[in-house]
């Protein structure tokens, strides 16, 4: 029986810039920041109230994971906003929206009333987009 998810990856264009976005703008905590040699780094963050789900900020680089042209194509797709990686939850949508907007987070859609409740859409510094909803 699967009991929980403990790691998930988000592919980013630049790890340093992603660190700044997720930690200084979204307010996530650094879980593990480990230098892996040859300029590589294992960097995971987590939301303040969910420390057991590590979000790995995975740079798109040519190597074992992305061969040849694949890295270039993947970078382009991320940049164009092809991928939506999930839904983040907050206690108060409008306050969170105002705070993130003040910190420079780009919203593709402000808090809007949908048939399922209020939700907003924002993109990270790479182009990955997320939905932001309020705890029901």
């Amino acid at each position, binding site marked *: 029986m699967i009991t929980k998810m403990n790691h998930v990856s988000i592919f980013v264009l630049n790890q340093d810039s992603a660190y700044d976005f997720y930690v200084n703008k979204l307010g996530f905590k650094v879980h593990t920041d480990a230098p*892996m*040699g040859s300029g590589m780094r*294992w960097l995971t963050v987590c939301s303040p109230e969910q420390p057991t789900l590590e979000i790995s900020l995975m740079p798109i680089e040519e190597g*074992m994971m992305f061969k040849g042209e694949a890295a270039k194509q993947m970078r382009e797709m991320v940049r164009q906003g092809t991928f939506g990686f999930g839904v983040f939850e907050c206690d*108060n949508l409008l*306050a969170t929206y*105002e705070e993130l907007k*003040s910190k420079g987070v780009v919203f593709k859609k402000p808090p809007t009333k949908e048939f399922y409740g209020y939700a907003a859409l924002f993109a990270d510094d790479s182009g990955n987009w997320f939905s932001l909803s309020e705890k029901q």
Partner: protein
Amino acid sequence: MEDYPKVYLYRRIVQAKLYIDKNYAENIDVSHISDEASFSKFHFIRQFRKIYGKTPHQHLTSIRMEQAKLLLQSPMPIAEVCFSVGFESVSSFTGLFKRYMHLTPFAYQQRQIRRQHEINSAPLKFVPGCFAEQKGWTKKSNFQELL
């Protein structure tokens, strides 16, 4: 968005919270913040609590604790951490930190330094095997350049 109630109110409270987030190390006066936000002190505290689930003072303490946790990842003296995050007394800082983290600042700092040392000396221990394999970080790699 337009049909969302009281947008202007949220904006003022959020700006007050951001002020606390930025100036946590200073001697922050809630009356001054509520004046800036054009609220009475009582109304400001009530609205802040409604949105964030804690009073401005509780939020300030929590920000100071989080900043202290970050500083305690380095070997900085405890008193210096205490004053850097805006506390004026080491004993009240230690007491609050213990209540918040169930550890003294010193014990927390020692734990964090040990963990950082472990990350540097055996980084693979902190990476799930499947990711390490995909990245080509195997146990045969000794990460010598890090040492």
